[in-house]
């Protein structure tokens, strides 16, 4: 698998560190044939598991321990959040389409799908802002009770991750417009896609554990 993959991957930065790289063009210079960036992204995502795990665990530790309301059951709007979750899930699909577009050097569709992904992400964030505003109006603030503290911190942390992802997607659209995302660099799109899917995966857990299980 690894050997077959190597030819399709773009050059890693380490490539230029190779003494005989002039004779070596088109071949991956790393020890495993995998690019440094991708290994780093997966390591980073492994680290993020512990980060979100700690936040989710904190939410679970305090589940049902709030002394005064509002309690989750009073304010959750499951149909609304289900729609948000659908939007984020959908954005994972469009991200996959963006990666598949650049793999066949289809720059126009790459920009299309990246933009759609970013827009879906923005809709999700807009939904979150609406949700937070509604909750605050119903009397749930970060200082109100344990539920308020742990809910806002967990979902807020996730929201910040989505926002950073949107910024990266828009940067990609911009780079593609300037002709800087060649087919050889499909992997850059793929790696940002990994981050995006990870944020989606975290939401899958949050949606079930925080919203659906009382």
């Amino acid at each position, binding site marked *: *698998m*690894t050997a*077959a*993959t190597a030819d*399709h991957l773009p050059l890693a930065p380490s490539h230029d560190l190779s003494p005989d790289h002039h004779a070596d063009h088109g071949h991956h210079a*790393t*020890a*495993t044939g*995998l690019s440094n960036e*991708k*290994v780093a992204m*997966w*390591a980073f*995502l*492994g*680290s*993020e*598991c*512990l980060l*979100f*795990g*700690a936040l*989710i*665990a904190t939410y*679970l*530790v305090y*589940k049902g321990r709030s002394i005064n309301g509002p309690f989750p059951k009073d304010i959750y709007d*499951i149909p609304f959040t*289900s729609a948000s*979750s*659908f939007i984020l*899930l*959908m954005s*994972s*699909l469009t*991200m*996959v*389409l963006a990666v*598949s577009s650049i*793999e*066949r*050097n*289809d720059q126009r*569709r790459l920009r299309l799908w990246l933009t759609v992904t970013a827009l879906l992400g923005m809709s999700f964030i807009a939904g979150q802002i609406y949700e937070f505003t509604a909750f605050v109006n119903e009397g749930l603030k970060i200082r109100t009770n344990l539920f308020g503290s742990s809910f806002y911190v967990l979902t807020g942390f996730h929201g910040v991750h989505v926002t950073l992802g949107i910024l990266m997607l828009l940067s990609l659209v911009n780079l593609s417009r300037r002709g800087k995302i060649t087919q050889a660099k*499909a992997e850059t799109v*793929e790696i940002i*896609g*990994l981050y995006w*899917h*990870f944020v*989606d*995966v975290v939401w*899958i*857990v949050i*949606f*079930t*554990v925080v919203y*659906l*299980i*009382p």
Partner: protein
Amino acid sequence: MSAEKLPDHYFDAAGEYIGPAFTAKDKQNFKIFVILLILTGIEVGLSYTSLESKKALFALPMLSLAGIKFVIVAGYFMHLKFDSPLMRRLFILGAVLAGFCYSAVLTAVGQFRGAGHWLVYVAFALVLLVVWVFRGDDGVVMGVDKGPGTASSH
């Protein structure tokens, strides 16, 4: 993950792609998406049934469904299933470590009290089972490093 081989007539003389909007792989991903939607629908639907009031009995299918969705997105959309085993190792290490450590914390602070709390561990085991089912095409979940290029290559 390797790009699929596309026929030459999908490209014009300048190498620009002029083929169909979606490839066979895209179509497979549509199917994956539909499966994810169905699983989400089941989850939301379950939360409106009377099962919802039966704590552990409700948590088991819900956590399992979330875990299965997690593994499907990681396996197909993040193409962990088709990628080098090394990627799987890095990610599974983090995910399993998080699962282990935080379950232990939750147990230690007494959040898993009451009858049927062990069902949570069953869900955890179920997810591990799914990880196994969705193991890479090469059949390796956690392989052993063969090492970089052999000495003879230089």
